[in-house]
């Protein structure tokens, strides 16, 4: 029997196709789990005929685990710490921290008026490179507010890493603030 040796580029090509298929499958699962149709009023003041309920995908371990795995591949090498704005990004940043081994902080919407009064919970040091992790980006108001809070600690933020970019101006606002948005999915890529 003649043994056929595969071309040397084939394993890499198969891995690439595998990754593409896994990403497509995750996109379908995200939509099935969390894409809601209706008449929604967004905090930007706009109305929307759909809404991504992040809690519906973040509360599914089979989805959350795959998201964390794919986000982990996009974490820049020089990141020291992850950050997640409360409440929606907390499960996400926790899963990503477990995946990467990187420590993380939680950014409050409002500093507590009692106790420690911290706007940022957890340990963060001056000069550290912090990666802001966000679930769904619309106009990026929350991600930018949280980034400003992290910056006020003396740390630096370079990138906002998100699961879904709704493509409603968030990327532009993030760029205008001197940051970069890296989203696992743009809305136009999802099978909605």
């Amino acid at each position, binding site marked *: 029997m003649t043994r056929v040796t595969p071309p040397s580029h084939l394993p890499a090509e198969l891995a690439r196709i595998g990754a593409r298929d896994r990403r497509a499958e995750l996109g379908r699962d995200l939509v099935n789990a969390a894409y809601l149709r209706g*008449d*929604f*009023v*967004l*905090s*930007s*003041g*706009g*109305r929307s005929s759909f*809404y991504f309920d*992040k*809690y519906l995908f973040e509360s599914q371990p089979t989805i959350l685990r795959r998201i964390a795995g794919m986000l982990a591949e996009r974490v820049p090498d020089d990141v020291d710490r992850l950050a997640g704005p409360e*409440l*929606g990004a907390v499960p996400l940043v926790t899963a990503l921290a477990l995946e990467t081994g990187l420590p993380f902080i939680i950014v409050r919407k409002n500093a507590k008026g009692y106790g420690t009064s911290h706007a940022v919970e957890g340990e963060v040091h001056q000069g550290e490179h912090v990666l802001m992790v966000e679930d*769904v980006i*619309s106009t990026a108001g*929350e991600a930018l507010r949280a980034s400003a809070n992290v910056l006020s600690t003396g740390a630096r933020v370079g990138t906002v890493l998100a699961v879904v970019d709704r493509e409603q101006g968030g990327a532009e606002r993030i760029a205008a603030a001197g940051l970069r948005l890296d989203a696992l999915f743009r809305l136009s890529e999802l099978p909605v």
Partner: protein
Amino acid sequence: MTVPNPDPLTHDGYRALLAEGGLTLPAPGDGEAGPLPKYSGSRDPAGAERLGAALAEAVAAVGTPRPDLVVVWQDPEDLVLGHVVARELGTAVVRFVDLDGLVGHEGSLPRNASAVVVTDAVRDPAVVRAIAAVLDRAGGSVVAVAGLVAPAFDLAPIPAVTARPGASVVTA
């Protein structure tokens, strides 16, 4: 509490009342004034009574339609002021909230309401747009925005009123 001037509608008395509640307005010529502090009626309930009554009077003077609902945004600091204005106007109060990017409200929202949004200052016009959109969905509308200082944004066609006519326009 010390109020230098008993008439809240005089310039200095008005500023003093705002300051008692934590809203210190930048003095003319101030450079980098920073974000506008939040007025809290709970810091000075007597002052909030006077300011709220003046706000209600200003709202009533706007004309028709007379508001039948007071709306406050989620900031707890606006609640005292909102309740004073609502009591003076004889309306209910509904608090709107941002629920992870979606705008909702606590308690029931009456249908076809003509609402006045009560706040110390409009810091983000998107808040007014969001409140108007939720009211619109229930057949209602925002008929006025009532603030302690005039908004730095054009909210047209919604009229903006202040407790003291001519209160400084400030940048949030």
